[in-house]
């Protein structure tokens, strides 16, 4: 019961604080799941984020649903997804059916505008954490090159992130292991021919 309450509260907060659509909730989910409740390691969160970005559909509910499922099964999943979306869907229905004109929401927009830079700061901090982790994991030179290449592919050549992630995953899969396993023999034979 305690766990379910924690799941609910964690994703309720994420849903109510994430202004600017699903992507703005990423640093909030990270805060709750990795820092506060420690349901996941930084690595697992990174994997989840990568795969979440590669697959279609809204990112916030994919994160919430998967994390809920990991923490306490199907009910955890339902709980987390509902906590993320239910409050704001209800709010939306109530506001739209009770107010008659869009002009009445102007004050809501003023409030939202001030949150955007806060979200930007959180995203920037999370970015730095991931870059640091990558630098420690595979060395700064390799990280620097990879960062530059990915940036150019993504921003200038407009290649979809899903394609880049999928390509890197395949590269990681087919690259030969340093400590030989049973399947390396096959790969080597193919490489020679």
């Amino acid at each position, binding site marked *: 019961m305690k766990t379910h309450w924690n799941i609910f509260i964690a994703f309720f907060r994420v849903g*109510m*604080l994430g*202004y600017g*659509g*699903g992507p*703005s909730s990423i640093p909030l989910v990270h805060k709750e799941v990795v820092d506060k409740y420690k349901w996941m390691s930084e*690595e697992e969160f*990174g*994997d*989840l984020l*990568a*795969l*979440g970005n590669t*697959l*279609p*559909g*809204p*990112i*916030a*509910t*994919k994160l919430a*649903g*998967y994390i809920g*499922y990991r923490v306490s099964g199907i009910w955890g*999943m339902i709980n987390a997804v509902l906590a*993320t*979306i239910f*409050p*704001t*869907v209800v*709010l*939306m*229905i109530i506001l739209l059916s009770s107010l008659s004109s869009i002009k009445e*929401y102007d*004050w*809501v927009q003023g*409030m*939202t*505008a*001030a*949150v955007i*830079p*806060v*979200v*930007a*700061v959180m*995203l*920037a901090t*999370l*970015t730095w954490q991931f*870059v640091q982790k*990558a630098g420690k994991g595979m060395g700064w030179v390799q990280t620097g090159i990879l960062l530059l290449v*990915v940036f150019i592919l*993504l921003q200038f050549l407009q290649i979809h*992130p899903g394609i880049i*992630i999928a390509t*890197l*995953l395949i590269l990681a899969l087919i*690259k030969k292991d*340093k400590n030989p396993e049973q399947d390396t023999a096959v790969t080597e034979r193919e490489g020679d021919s």
Partner: protein
Amino acid sequence: MIYWEIFLAFFIPGILGYGGGPASIPLVENEVVTRYGWMNVQEFSEVLALGNSLPGPIATKMAGYIGYDVAGIPGAAIGVFATVAPSLLLIIVLLGILYKYKNSPKVKRMTLYIRPVIGILLGVMAWRFFSESYEGIGLWQTVILTVVSYLLIERVKLHPAFVIGGALIYGGFFL
């Protein structure tokens, strides 16, 4: 059958919308306005404007409200379900397979390789939020809010909930 139509109208954008909820909005508009004619463009953009100023994921807010508008509470439930369920099932299955082999050096390398991509993606998102803010409320407000929220979150270690709450109040009065 209206429920089946609602399911399809949100299932298709959910499956085709790569890049999170915001990417699926034009697809939703295509289904809701062009194909089924549940709303006109004007109505759709008003719903979108309100959706953008409320918290939480945008795709599910749109699905929930439009579903409700078309067929009441069951409509809202179906719209949200069709948006969320397919991609959620996919990610649970895929990560399940991946973690079965999590001790394999190949899977460890996967984790390592994609980290810079995630770094870039998040960095680009951060940049987009900064520039949206710059266009919306101008340079000085953006700089002030950025510096203050950075200090509070990273130095004072305040939970972001309080910082966002503070920003909402500030924005309600001054912006």
